[in-house]
């Protein structure tokens, strides 16, 4: 019973860490809009935290370049397992219009494994929330399989 409560808890209490990895701020504004009364992500138990050691889901916006790839990897490594990564926006998914730039490595998945991709330029708040819910369904599947 205690074990099933812990598994339920992991799905019902996702704390997000939002990292701007070189975004134009369009996707960041949409991500933060999720916290407002209009979208109210806290109804899913989601909290936006500023500390990777407390986070369960890493939400990354923007392209990865030579300089911030190390920081992105560092944040990911500091998060406790099990963890999810969500790439938000065209830049986060593939590098977007900047993918051919000499300093740009590409999407988030060039550095860390990504679980859910959110398309859009910028991505809509509804799509970001849907990505978190999709990611949690994936996490639930992993937890069920590990029984």
């Amino acid at each position: 019973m205690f074990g099933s409560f812990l598994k339920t808890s992991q799905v019902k209490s996702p704390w997000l860490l939002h990292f701007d990895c070189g975004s134009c701020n369009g996707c960041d504004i949409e991500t933060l809009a999720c916290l407002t009364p209009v979208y109210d992500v806290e109804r899913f138990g989601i909290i936006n935290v500023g500390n990777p050691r407390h986070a369960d889901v890493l939400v990354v916006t923007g392209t990865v370049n030579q300089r911030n790839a190390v920081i992105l990897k560092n944040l990911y490594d500091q998060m406790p397992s099990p963890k999810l990564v969500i790439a938000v926006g065209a830049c986060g998914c593939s590098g977007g219009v900047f993918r051919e730039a000499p300093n740009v490595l590409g999407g988030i998945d060039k550095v860390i494994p990504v679980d859910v991709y959110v398309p859009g330029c910028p991505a809509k708040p509804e799509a970001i929330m849907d990505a978190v819910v999709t990611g949690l369904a994936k996490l639930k599947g992993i937890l069920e399989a590990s029984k």
Partner: protein
Amino acid sequence: MNLNTLYLAVAGLVLAPLLGGLVAGVDRVVTAKLQSRMGPPLFQPFYDVGKLWSKVIAPASHWQGLFVRWALVASLASDVVLAAGGDVLMCFFVQAASASFVALGAFCGNSPYGKLGAQRELFQLLAYEPVFMVGILCMAKAAGGFDAFSIMAAQGQPLLFKLPLIVPGLLFAVLVKLRKSPFDIAASHHMHQEVVRGVYTDYAGRDFALLEIAHWADVTVVLWICSFLWATGPLQMLATGLVFLFAALIIDNISARLTWRTMLKTVAPLTLILATANLVWLYLE
């Protein structure tokens, strides 16, 4: 110690943290409603603690685990002392030890935010402890004894009519212990502030879950002591505790955070002077 005291102590040990978790749930739901949001489920704090418990992460320092467990033991011990009808002053000192352990654990970590938060935690202790202690002295003087049962047994006229000047001091202590604005100085209850999570920054995973349970136990103790002001019956005590809780939630939602200097130089002396005036008045009466 008779068997009844033992039962009460065990009930305090088990129920007090659960009650504190429920208070945290009510806090989040009411805060969401005040901000025109739907808010999380009532039991969300329990899910949060369950989640943190199942997380695998290495502690920032091996001393932290020890201090977290001591903090939990001290917080639960203060619950037990109060539930068993023990000395309220002793319960208060044991709880202060718990807060000190949290700060010590944060000092062991590497995060500058954690260390800054730990210093602020000590400033908070310095600010609210004297006020809260004078408040308890007033209660004991008015009720005729330091043990919880004799304060709770002061039937007839509620203590509030003899102790009106300690109310600001108690509310100050409730705001600090609930980590609410304008006094969420050490742990920045609302995230994304300049000290990240302050004294809690370095704690993670199971240690953080235990710390959260210790916090729930602390909240129950503080609200319980506040409810002594109208201890004419269990329902009246519950109502008094809820009045303090809702007052704290409303103040949290309408105020910005103060600096520790304002807390230490203005709020703490003012509330201390008021509480001391009440104590002097009781002695002169």
